[in-house]
């Protein structure tokens, strides 16, 4: 809640942040779509591809919740790096959820695009 910045510019930045965070769980499921990843990789791709720079410490509780909900599975893998890494992958239930959420997102975005269309042509 609380606003970090004041003024119209701050409101806009805050609104964009909220918008992205609302899509966080969909973004995580989508990132895992093509294969297993460990926490830091998920964080990096969230930042690079979705502009979602979340506090690093929050990703593990989120993944833990998704695991409890049966959306992702995890396994420890001995890596070349010299320490084991915990990899996350989508379960069949997680793939189903990702597809359903994506459909919901696209339907919403299509509707909103229709609403926004008149904003393009009119320079007033």
């Amino acid at each position, binding site marked *: 809640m609380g606003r970090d910045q004041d003024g119209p510019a701050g409101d806009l930045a805050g609104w964009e942040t909220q918008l992205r965070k609302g899509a966080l769980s969909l973004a995580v499921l989508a990132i895992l779509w093509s294969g297993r990843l460990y926490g830091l990789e998920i964080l990096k791709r969230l930042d690079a591809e979705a502009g979602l720079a979340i506090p690093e410490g929050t990703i593990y509780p989120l993944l*833990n919740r998704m695991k409890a909900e049966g959306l992702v599975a995890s396994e420890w893998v001995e890596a070349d790096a010299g320490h084991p890494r915990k990899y996350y992958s989508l379960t069949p239930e997680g793939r189903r959820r990702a597809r359903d959420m994506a459909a919901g997102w696209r339907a919403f975005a299509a509707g909103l695009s229709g609403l926004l269309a008149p904003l393009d042509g009119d320079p007033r």
Partner: protein
Amino acid sequence: MTRDAGLAHLDAYLAQVQRHVRGLPDAEVREIVAELRAHVLDKVEGRVSPAAVEAAIAELGSPREIARLNITERVVARAEARRTPLSVLGGVVRLAGLSAYGLFAFLVSVLGYGSALAFLATAAVKPFAWDRAGLWITRNAPDDYIASWHLGITDNPRLGHEILGVWIIPIGIVAGLLAGWLTWRFNLFSLRLMGRRARRGR
């Protein structure tokens, strides 16, 4: 050796995390600590110096912060799964020490369930202690407008005026159940609020 010093710094941090998340099942504690260890080692990309480790730790959050995020997540999920008043109250008690709001929610539950019990107990005792149980108004002097309220059983009924008589039984039962229900809903709301805050890293 800077590598040894870096690893020692990481282990000291993880030991603190472990202390702060105590109370969670051992397997979960081990899992959290092992995953944070892997995270920091990946983050420093092979340069295990105290400075690099410190920078990675700073981005993760303090041991207290890490504990708050992880414990809140699990406690809220558990209470959500079984929304009974007792399991919800258990969640509030568990989170009381982790944030200012947690403490506030705990104090409100003590007050809420306390008054619920007082109403119900007074109603239950009334038939057996007719003169002494009820809702009392006591004044220090007959014309003193500063009155104090007293609900329950009094040792000295002559000092006050009992205002509800037999009505304390239905009113006490309804007020007690209402106070209990409201406290339960408030606790559920509080847990969800703390869960949302933790998810945002706050």
